[in-house]
């Protein structure tokens, strides 16, 4: 039960930060998204995001910063085998699944639903 509460609080806190950046910093939605992905990458490389996921689980994985984390994680995983090339080859090792899932889900949503506004 405690896991759910922590995930809820951490995930909510990340979203609250994004909202504050948008409202106070006058950033557009696209900029905030980019900012969060990039932050996820940096925190992923430095290992901080691993610790956050250990504490909060889905609360840290689900926000878009989690996508940045998986980009970084893929590169790090292939780093020993491919060296610098891992930046290209490893980036989508884990994040690819997220992208494919989004594309497939969007396709079926578009087939089944009609925009209302």
């Amino acid at each position, binding site marked *: 039960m405690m896991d759910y509460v922590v995930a809820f609080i951490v995930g909510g806190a990340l979203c609250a930060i994004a909202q504050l950046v*948008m409202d106070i910093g006058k950033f557009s*939605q696209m900029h905030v998204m980019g900012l969060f992905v990039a932050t996820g990458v940096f925190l992923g490389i430095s290992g901080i995001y691993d610790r956050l996921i250990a504490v909060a689980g889905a609360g840290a994985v689900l926000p878009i910063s989690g996508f940045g984390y998986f980009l970084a994680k893929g590169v790090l995983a292939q780093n020993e085998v491919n060296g610098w090339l891992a930046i290209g080859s490893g980036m989508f090792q884990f994040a690819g699944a997220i992208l494919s899932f989004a594309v497939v889900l969007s396709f079926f949503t578009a087939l089944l639903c009609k*925009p*209302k*506004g």
Partner: protein
Amino acid sequence: MKLAGKQTWVFEHDIYIQETGTAVGPLEAEGPLRESFDIAHDDLYCGERTWELAERRLMQEAIDVCLQKGSISFDDIDLFLAGDLLNQNVTANYVARTIPAPFLCMFGACSTSMQTAAVGAALIDGGFARTVLAATSSHNATAERQFRYPTELGVQKPKTATFTVTGAGAVVIGRKRGRWRIAAATIGKVIDAGTANPFDMGSAMAPAAASTIEQHFIDLGVSPADYDLIVTGDLSRVGSVIVRQMLAESGYDVTDNYNDCGLMIYRPDQNVFAGGSGCACCAVVTYGHLLKEMERGALQKIFVVATGALLSPTMMQQKQSIPAIAHGVVIEAVKEGQ
């Protein structure tokens, strides 16, 4: 000379609005002016497959109902003037395929309603046409993807954003005596207040509206008290305050007889942010509601100032500011036996 002062046209002949037609979408039909509109749809698609086709249908219906109400046939129309908000004015251009009259497409963003009415009246006064059909339209969903973001993206909007009205308005203007007379028109200058926020069009357009209204008073030597109502097109809650303030600073008090179409068309609790906007906002409120009020005798003489923000998404992406324009038309009620 028909030009009074610098920017105002005073028509020599009596030019009348002979008939009007309006068609609106579901949210407008739920609003406080629902009784004023000729056709109301309960679905945003208006029975069509796409939003753009829905907007085209609205304009077509507004024209059809206008001609039908006035028993006017297409043979009587010497010129068709129309415009909308979409790229290449597709709504107006495609509707014009079905109108057997010469056509001039006009773009003035949301000022198109009064732009077409003013130009139509001028052409009639000059003898280039006997009867002119003028129409304009906008659709919430087509405007969203044209100017903002696709609604499916679910982008948050600030309170200063406006909500594009779904609807279309048409008028037939001519020399034949009607219930309303177009007496004068003031053509606006493009004013750029330097703002670059497409989610705050009210602030961008208010200086243009103030400029046109002030120039109108100067050109004709009249004061705000000469009008029962001075109404702007779509300045919303944000812009209407600014224009009031700017006019007060220039010594024109419009406290008692000023309103904005964008504030009249929706109830405040309809989740429309700062109020209505779009070509159809000024068109359906004026042609639908205000002219009926004049017929009823509640208003005698009004000055309708349609405001337009002349932006494009490409210019916004290149961080350019928003030029704005406002065109005003004086409409008088024609009394029985006058």
